[in-house]
């Protein structure tokens, strides 16, 4: 697999795991009965995805060679830039 595909797969897994853990925590906290159990299931699935990602990258698996940490920095930078852009837009609209 090419380095780009490996990187994409790695970051896909990271994004998937983050959303499952976050949404699972919210659903498990605010849900009741069956919904709460679904939330615990999401957390479990997120933990499995995180564990798989960890085993494939930090533990020296197939994804170890890509610039993953720097790419995570790029993801954070992209989100930060988008948020700043939206803030600029809102400030301009509100001040006008």
């Amino acid at each position, binding site marked *: 697999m090419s380095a*780009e595909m490996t*990187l*994409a*797969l*790695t*970051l*896909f*897994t*990271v*994004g*998937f*795991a*983050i*959303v*499952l853990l976050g*949404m*699972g925590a919210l*659903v498990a906290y605010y*849900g*009741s*009965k*069956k*919904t709460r159990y*679904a939330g615990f*299931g*999401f957390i479990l*699935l997120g933990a499995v995805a995180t564990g798989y990602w*960890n085993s494939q990258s*930090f*533990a020296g698996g197939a994804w170890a060679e890509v*610039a993953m*940490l*720097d*790419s*995570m*920095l*790029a*993801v*954070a*930078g*992209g*989100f*930060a*830039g*988008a*948020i*700043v*852009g*939206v803030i*600029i*837009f809102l400030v*301009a*609209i509100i001040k*006008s």
Partner: protein
Amino acid sequence: MFTTELLGYLWNFEFFVAAFLFGLGLATLGSGLFTAYFGAGKSQQIGFGLIVMAILVLGLQYHQTYIADPATFDAANFRYGLIAAIAAMVGMGAGMFAVLFILMKVDTVDDLEDLDLEDLEDLDLDEELKKLEEELAAADGGDVSDDGGDDAPTEDADKEDKA
């Protein structure tokens, strides 16, 4: 394993800056296009201003990555950052889809079992309204001639009823 790797890692902040500029450019371009198209007057001018700002940011980044010699940003790093950001967003979308799909498929109706919907179906709303009016009238001092809280004269209320 994870923490020791993170603690000893020398971060390359070029990834962050390049992605930050690209995200900023895309967000201002999108919001600018939206405002310029749907806005009017001042808002439309703000939209055009945002588009100009986005073109400047993206153009500067393109120049500093692909044209300038020596280049400020490494093209390979920018490509990797872009792939990573898109992949992470697709992963988050997939996660959201999975969560919503499972939540919709899981039968959560029993969470509402405390609500007895059959009682609600049998409820006569007119009857309940009359009871409430009588209770309110009794609380106001036994005046049952009130037409339901409307300040309009009784004749008007009668006309409305006939209409």
